[in-house]
C-alpha cells in the first residue's frame, strides 16, 4: 500500500515538474497573425470602466484601428501623443481608434489611471485573457491593426519607423489609412518595429 502511494506521488511529481518547465517556455508561442485581407471576427471586451463593447459597436464607418498598448512599456508610452492625435485626426474621417491592453501584469485600474494621466481619450479595452491578442497574433506594444468597414485587415504593424518623433521617415499606419480613405490599395500593408513583448496571462 505504501509503495503504491510513493509511486503515485512520484508520478505526480514528474507530471507537475514537466508541466511547470514546459509552461515556462510558452513565451515563444505567439499565434500567427491573420493574413492581410483576412476578415477579423467580431469580438467583445470590457473597457476600463467594465462596460462591455463589441467591435461592431465601436467601429468607424470607414474602418477601425486597433492598437495594443501598455502602461509600463516605454516604447508604447513614446507613442501616447501620436496615438491620441491619430484618434482625433481620423475621428471626423470615420475611422475609430481603439486601444487594447492585453498585459496580464497591468490591471484595469492601472490602465484607467494611466489613460487619464496620459490624456488618452480613445476607448481602451482590457483583454484580460489575451482572447483578442491571440486571435490577432499580437506580440508587442505598440502594435496596430487597421480594418476596413467590413473588418477586412488592410494593415498590420508599427505606427511609424521610430520611437523618436524627430526621426520619423515612414508614417506607415497613417499612409495605410489615407490610402484606404482615398479608395487606393495600401502600398505597404505590413511593417515591423521593436517593442515590448505582450505579457500574456
Amino acid at each position, binding site marked *: 500500500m505504501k509503495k503504491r502511494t510513493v509511486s503515485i*506521488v512520484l508520478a505526480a511529481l514528474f507530471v507537475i515538474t514537466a508541466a511547470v518547465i514546459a509552461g*515556462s*517556455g510558452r*513565451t515563444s508561442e505567439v499565434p500567427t497573425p491573420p493574413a492581410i485581407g483576412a476578415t477579423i471576427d467580431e469580438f467583445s471586451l470590457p473597457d476600463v470602466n467594465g462596460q462591455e463593447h463589441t467591435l461592431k459597436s465601436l467601429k468607424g464607418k470607414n474602418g477601425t484601428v486597433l492598437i495594443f498598448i501598455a502602461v509600463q512599456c516605454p516604447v508604447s508610452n513614446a507613442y501616447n501623443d501620436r496615438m491620441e492625435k491619430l484618434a482625433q485626426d481620423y475621428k471626423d474621417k470615420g475611422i475609430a481608434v481603439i486601444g487594447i491592453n492585453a498585459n496580464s501584469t497591468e490591471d484595469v485600474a492601472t490602465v484607467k489611471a494611466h489613460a487619464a494621466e496620459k490624456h488618452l481619450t480613445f476607448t481602451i479595452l482590457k483583454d484580460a485573457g489575451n482572447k483578442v491578442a491571440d486571435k490577432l497574433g499580437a*506580440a508587442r506594444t505598440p502594435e496596430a491593426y487597421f480594418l476596413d468597414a467590413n473588418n477586412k485587415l488592410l494593415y498590420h504593424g508599427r505606427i511609424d519607423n521610430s520611437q523618436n518623433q524627430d526621426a520619423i521617415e515612414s508614417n506607415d499606419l497613417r499612409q495605410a489609412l489615407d490610402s484606404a480613405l482615398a479608395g487606393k490599395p495600401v502600398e505597404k500593408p505590413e511593417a*515591423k518595429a521593436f517593442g515590448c513583448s505582450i505579457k500574456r496571462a
Partner: protein
Amino acid sequence: MRIPRLTLVVAFTVLFIYLTVPGQDTVRTVRRAKSATEPAVPTNVEPINLSGLKDLISKPKDKPLLVNFWATYCDPCRDEFPDLVKVDSDFRPKSLDFVTVSLDDVGDIKTKVPQFLAQMKATMPAYLLDVSDPEPAINAVDPKWQGDLPATFLYNAKGEVVFRAFGRVNTAALREAIEHLVKN
C-alpha cells in the same frame, strides 16, 4: 519521533519542484553573487548597421552562436540578463560565441547601455543596432519575429537557427539547447 513516510515524500516533492523551476529568486540570487566575482568587464558597445548585423548572423561559423536582442528600457530583458551572463561564463569555454545587440537609442551607446552591462558584469561582445528603419533588421534575423523584446536566437555551426525565444527566455530550455550543440 518517527515521521510518516508519506509526509517525507510530500516534503521532498515540494522541495524538488521548488528547486527545479527555472527563474526562482533564490537561484537567481546565487547566480548574481557568483557572477559578481568575475573580472574583465568590457564597457565598449559597438554600433552595428544592417549589413554588419547580416554579416554577424550569416557569416560562416566554426562554433555555435547565441544572439540576444535587448534594451535597457525593457523589463524582461533586464530581468533575464543575469541568467544570460551565467550562460556566457558557463558555455564560452565550451566553444559558444555569444553577442548581445541593444535596441536602445544610439545616443545611449556611451551611457545607459555600457552602464547596465558593467552592472551585470557582462563580458560578451556588445553591439547597438544603429538603423533608421528597424524592419529590414528584424526580417534579416527572422521573418517570424514581430520585433518584440527580448528575443534570443541560437545558431548552430552551419548558421541555422536551432532555438528561438521571444519574450523572457526559458533559461533551462536554452541551456539544454546549447548543451546539445556543444556536445555535437
